[in-house]
């Protein structure tokens, strides 16, 4: 049999022997969460089209364990906001965020979601971080699928390495408090 060089999945630090592997629980949980993120696509405009390309066979987001999109916020881990959010849409976005169960992460894709973009006008929310906390910002107008994937990998890094108890920390509660979210 030919010796094939297989690019094996990442393995956390631990003690290894014949037939067993020992590591800490938070690393195992982090590994599991990282590779099975269920994103909720909140797509309102052209960034959403780029996301469709990201999901489709060419770029294939399922390589990162995210082939299962969740269109219900209750089962989603990652809120991906892609596109212009008008001020009228702001409370709806916030409502969606509040319905998601912990742990949850938010990714803001594209110039409009990050800062309002070219829509410096009375009707457009000047960045979604005015209504919900954001973990990763992806710039671009619209960003290419590679950029969305890089943003997604940054989220994965957060998911893998952050403390399992981060969500109970004083700092996190304070952050949510600034948004008026319990």
């Amino acid at each position, binding site marked *: 049999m030919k010796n094939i060089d297989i690019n094996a999945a990442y393995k956390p630090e631990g003690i290894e022997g014949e037939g067993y592997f020992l590591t800490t629980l938070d690393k195992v949980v982090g590994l599991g969460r990282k590779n099975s993120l269920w994103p909720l696509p909140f797509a309102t405009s052209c960034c959403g089209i780029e996301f469709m390309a990201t999901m489709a066979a060419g770029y294939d987001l399922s390589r990162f364990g995210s082939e299962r999109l969740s269109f219900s916020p209750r089962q989603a881990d990652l809120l991906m906001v892609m596109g212009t959010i008008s*001020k009228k849409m702001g409370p709806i976005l916030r409502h969606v965020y509040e319905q998601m169960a912990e742990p949850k992460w938010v990714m803001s894709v594209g110039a409009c979601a990050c800062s*309002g973009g070219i829509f410096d006008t*009375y009707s457009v929310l*000047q960045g979604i971080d005015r209504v919900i906390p954001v973990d990763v910002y992806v710039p671009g107008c619209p960003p290419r699928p590679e950029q969305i994937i890089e943003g997604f990998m940054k989220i994965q890094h957060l998911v893998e390495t952050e403390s399992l108890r981060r969500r109970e920390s004083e700092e996190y509660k304070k952050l949510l408090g600034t948004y008026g979210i319990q």
Partner: protein
Amino acid sequence: MLVNELGQLVQDKLTLNFGEGSSKLEYHYDFPVFIVSKDKLYDILTFLKEDKDLSFKYLTTMCGVQFPNAQPELEFGLMYQLHNMEKNYRIRLKVFMPKSDLNMKSITTIWSAANWMEREAFDFYGFNFIGHPNLKRILNMEEMNYHPMRKEYPLEDATRHDKEDKYFGR
């Protein structure tokens, strides 16, 4: 029918029924435009819809306008565009009013289609349509406390900070 024949036909009918000087006829490109007085508009629209020869049964569109540099009594206006689908007649009506008096009789009783269009004109310019069944904002969020298309308000969002001079070394 030629455009100027149509314009003259409607103008004659309006003069006959509403008196001399009740409407002023203009042509914008190939479109007859009638400038009428505010208090007669409702009756004129009813007449244009009911009249057997004209029967403008379809309200194509209506909207508000503002000319900030015009004289005060011509500053705000409403535009109504009508269509006779059988004969393909199309005309436009305009009324003007000062900022101090933006009250207008609602035409929802003539065309139900005017409901959302009047709400839009209210939302963006603050026209008050008397008799409208549900006069509230339609496109902007309800908490908004001004009428954003009025020229006295800036178009930009007042809360945006990334265009401040310090970021550009000014």
